[in-house]
């Protein structure tokens, strides 16, 4: 299979026009000692063979097409309306580039503008960018904004242990060269304990909402305490929950980041996902990545264009605070189409379905011997189950019955050995939940 269109006659005519005899003549500048190495790779396949090989590889996985999924922990199996994929598959969107030439990119630009609007509505923030790689990198970039807001004088970053463990790892990777003090996330720390760490050296305090355990913590006085020392309050939010719950802005958040994957992007073994990033207006000039703004053309017609470009790496070069260039434009489009279809009432209904189904599951599991539920705080669609047997053993039994069980919390939180994090979404039917409960009941110590 080849996508190269040239005929032998084309090649000869082109070489003659260039004034060389062979294509090899065009590579004189490449050191002769290293020129034209052999590539030891399998031979080309036909399209039919590729499809068959990849189909076999795909089916070697335990996926949501043939398993009931109760695993979340940062990636959620939600329903995506058919229209989303049909729009994504339009070549006009997916085979276009970054909208550097706005006259030829109004489709992408307006869709991004609408996406920004919806993310502002969900989070309550004044401005949102055109996306980051994922929720974890959004959080890492939020740290950069907070450091900048603190004029690089504040060196302490407080992270709640209730933030996704991988997100916290990414923050540490991103900022390993910066001499920061990243604290607060010892596994057993409470919200009150991390608030005690606030001081005038603190650039930001970040929490997850609902937290990694699915719980909604008491956030009423948090912003006041964070702002009292001049630090920023950052929320890592689940966008589906925001259709039901108070917005982070209501709690006084300055920056809201998170993972847009539940909004029509799909599981995809972890990517591509879409990190969202919203801020209060005073920080809009500090954020990384593309932002689309409204303007007019020479004839006074409304139009859209990438704006605040001087912040970006391609212009500011080493004075830019982030190098982000390619973002997740197509995934932002997916989220935009998804939210358009769901609308105000659909998004709320999905959130309610998740909530009630998760609570039904928790109530049923609570009735089993050997299991108990952490009811200490309200939760959305994910909850902690204390088990009397190792989670690994439970999940093995579930897998045999076609169920992918919860996330083993002992992996990241040693004090939560034998605790399982179970996620329930609108895609889990009552029959699936009942089957989960039945298998759990059968697993013996």
């Amino acid at each position: 299979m080849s996508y190269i269109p040239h005929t032998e006659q084309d090649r000869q005519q082109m070489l003659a026009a260039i004034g060389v005899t062979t294509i090899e003549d065009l590579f004189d500048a490449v050191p002769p000692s290293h020129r034209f190495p052999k590539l030891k790779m399998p031979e080309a396949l036909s399209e039919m063979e590729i499809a068959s090989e990849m189909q076999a590889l795909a089916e070697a996985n335990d996926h949501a097409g043939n398993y009931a999924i109760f695993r979340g922990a940062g990636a959620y199996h939600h329903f995506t309306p058919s229209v989303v994929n049909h729009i994504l598959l339009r070549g006009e969107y997916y085979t276009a580039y970054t909208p550097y030439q706005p006259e030829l990119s109004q489709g992408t630009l307006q869709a991004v503008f609408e996406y920004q609007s919806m993310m502002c509505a969900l989070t309550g923030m004044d401005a949102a960018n055109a996306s980051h790689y994922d929720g974890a990198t959004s959080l890492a970039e939020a740290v950069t904004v907070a450091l900048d807001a603190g004029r690089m004088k504040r060196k302490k970053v407080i992270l709640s242990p209730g933030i996704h463990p991988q997100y916290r790892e990414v923050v540490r990777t991103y900022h390993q060269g910066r001499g920061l003090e990243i604290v607060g996330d010892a596994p057993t720390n409470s919200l009150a304990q991390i608030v005690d760490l606030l001081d005038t050296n603190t650039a930001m305090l970040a929490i997850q909402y609902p937290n990694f355990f699915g719980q909604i913590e008491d956030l009423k006085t948090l912003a006041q305490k964070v702002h009292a020392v001049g630090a920023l309050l950052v929320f890592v939010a689940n966008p589906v929950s925001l259709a039901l719950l108070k917005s982070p802005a209501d709690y006084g958040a300055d920056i809201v980041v998170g993972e847009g994957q539940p909004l029509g992007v799909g599981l995809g073994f972890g990517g591509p996902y879409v990190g969202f990033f919203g801020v209060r207006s005073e920080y809009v000039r500090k954020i990384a990545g593309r932002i689309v703004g409204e303007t007019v053309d020479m004839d006074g017609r409304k139009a859209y264009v990438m704006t605040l470009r001087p912040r970006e790496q391609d212009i500011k070069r080493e004075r830019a605070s982030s190098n982000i260039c390619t973002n997740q434009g197509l995934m932002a489009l997916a989220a935009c189409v998804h939210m358009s279809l769901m609308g105000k009432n659909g998004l709320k209904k999905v959130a309610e379905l998740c909530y009630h189904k998760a609570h039904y599951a928790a109530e049923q599991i609570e009735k089993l011997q050997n299991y108990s539920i952490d009811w200490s705080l309200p939760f959305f669609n994910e909850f902690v189950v204390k088990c009397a047997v190792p989670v690994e053993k439970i999940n093995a039994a579930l897998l045999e019955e076609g169920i992918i069980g919860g996330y083993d919390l002992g992996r990241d939180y040693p004090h939560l050995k034998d605790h399982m994090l179970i996620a329930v979404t609108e895609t889990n039917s009552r029959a699936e939940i009942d089957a989960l409960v039945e298998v759990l009941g059968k697993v013996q110590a």
Partner: protein
Amino acid sequence: MSAEPTIYEISQAGRIGVNLPKLDVPESEKLPADLLRDELTMPEVSELEVVRHFVRLSQKNYSIDKGFYPLGSCTMKYNPKINEDVARYAGFASLHPLTDESGSQGALAVMWQLQEWLREVSGFDAASLHPAAGAHGEFAGILMIRKYHIEHGEPQRTKILVPNSAHGTNPATVTMAGLSVIDLPSDKNGDVDLGALLAICEGPEKENIAGMMITVPNTLGLFERGIIKIVETVHAAGGLMYMDGANMNALMGIVKPGELGFDVMHYNLHKTFSTPHGGGGPGCGAIGVAARLIPFLPTPHVVIKEEAKDADDAPLYGFITPEKSIGRLKAFHGNFGMHTRAYAYIRAYGGDGLHEVSRHAVLNANYIRAQLSSTYHVPYDRPCGHEFVLEGHFEGVESVHALDISKRLMDYGYHPPTNYFPLIVPEALLIEPTETETKETLDQFIDAMKKIAQEAKETPELLTGAPHVTPVSRLDEVRAAKQLVLCCAPVLAEHEN
């Protein structure tokens, strides 16, 4: 083309675009009212309205599927349709990232095999698919170089040499990693100035050099003639060599960067290996590394945990954290959907086919260069890689700039080349045709470029007022930045309340 209202303007209270299932479990006690929100400013539209809205918007976009897209440094080649299908196979698209290794062997096999092929194409000792975009790969590479020096007791090595022809991401990456840039000039032939390089590498900064970031072929589209000398010079000073592999489309089967002595490189899978750009992303910035950097690779890294027992058996794939890893750069395992597309693409070509890709990418670029060099000034008129620069400016026609030529090209049905980059060429137009374009397409483009040159001299206002046939005319970009409007009106109104 008339303006498309925003989705919020189409909205009518009470409409919905999707049917959702009824609640099939008993309703549980509701959340306390003080936790609930009362307003959500989302559009309310029917399914058909959503379809029409986004289809109408799509028609305001230019794309490869519609026409020629010679955007230099971006490699806008054809995106094969089979790639989109395979990425959507249920076993890939609906696989949870935290599925146990035993339940994700198919996905892990794709990742491992792709790593191996990338390794072979580039001549490195290992490859990682973890970074989500080219700039993310650069960041990984520079963090690895930094950590390498720290581990070797040389934490003072904090300076990275960056040629002035480099992508803007390169210097930004260096800063982001907490290191600083030493700017390196180019010589009159468009190569790195070897004298200047030598002076720095043997001068007082020698002990502080962490490495060098260089693009090959460089952003002028030229293969650095002194590349071996450059690598030797930086290595002799104790620095490591980073190659920006954005232009790998010109190198497959031509030269292996690992064999030239580079220590680390990123690939843009969305360029060279045809995973689509999607209006700005997603990408994948896989990296290749020499042996000495393997312990520093980001986590997780895919390896074979148990070899296959016999020919009919498959090995056991799994994730590891390399011994001195720089850490995790994103959640989960990288942009896996891009890995499946790149896998399908490489499978379609095989090794010999990839060599043909690069040969024809270079042939196409040189053909346009040769055909336009009598009409436009081509500042470095020697055989180029898969792209070349020309100056979009004519003597005696001061009103016409490269941007005007770009805008006029739109009227002829083309996406413009890259404008004003590289920065070292005034009025630069960086043209990259890619290998998937026919000679006829190139001839038509050459013809349009010649006509525009003619127009510039005879009717320059045609250019300075262009484009004339696009959905909107030139935009007031200053107004966009000064009077910031970043959300639809109903959302703004909600914020003002």
